[in-house]
């Protein structure tokens, strides 16, 4: 089994573009289709944007897992920001705003195969999302 991990600091909007381009490249290396690589890049963009908007800075880890049985990517977005009060509501879309353009975590949940959110108000948030190559 092969694992490859990249840790990126996210603090500026420029970092968002860099993170999603790295993510897209990584997804293509793992063997995702162009369509799925775009989805993964979009999820990364949203997670990185949340860090910049709410937490000012954090880290985004991109991990590629290449396994005989299962290959995929795991995205981990970590910050020491304000935290999310109601994680379930955020995941289900309760925090979306104006005409489907306030994506948030519910959008990431729709794109990825699995998502896990650990958050404590005043302490920070860690979002882990994964997508597997479907053979």
């Amino acid at each position, binding site marked *: 089994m092969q694992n490859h991990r990249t840790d990126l600091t996210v603090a500026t*909007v*420029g970092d*968002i*573009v860099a993170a*999603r*381009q790295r993510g*897209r490249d990584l997804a293509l290396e793992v063997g995702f289709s*162009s*369509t799925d*690589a*775009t*989805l993964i*890049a*979009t999820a990364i*963009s*949203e997670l990185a*944007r949340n860090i910049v908007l709410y937490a000012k800075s954090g880290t985004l880890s991109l991990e590629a897992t290449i396994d005989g049985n299962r290959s995929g990517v795991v995205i981990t977005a970590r910050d020491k920001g304000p935290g999310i009060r109601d994680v379930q509501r955020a995941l289900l*879309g309760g925090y979306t705003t*104006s*005409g*489907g*353009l*306030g*994506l*948030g975590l*519910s*959008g990431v949940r*729709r*794109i990825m195969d699995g998502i896990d959110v650990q958050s404590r108000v005043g302490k920070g948030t860690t979002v882990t999302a994964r997508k597997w190559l479907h053979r």
Partner: protein
Amino acid sequence: MAKGVNPSSGTTRQPMPASVSIFKQRHYLISRVPAGPSDEDLAGLRDRLVREVGQHRSMGVIVDVTDLDVMDSFSARTLRDLALAIRLRGAETVIVGLQPEVAFSMVQLGLRLEGVQTALDLEEGIAYLDNKRVRQDSGAE
């Protein structure tokens, strides 16, 4: 590019990221969003187009997103705001060249560009704007 297209001279007074060119073609302004646009690139383009519609008395704006690799909530919101602001100024915006993967990811995400006209490519975008003008001139709208 079609004949007779002139690059717009930078007439802004404040310094602005000038990475996106805006071309004037007849009554329309045409711009192309680059690959991997920063938030400043998109916000800057939005502000410039809204302003230049007035300077050139344009009736339509085409934003070509062929090179846009990812549409996230910020870019979708900025394009929508651009189209709405331009409509308030009396002109119409058409977003063209949305790539298949980007369109699909938008559907997956539930991103809607509501109230924003789209067309397949530059040619279709111009045809749409021409058509709209004809309908308006003939009093049909």
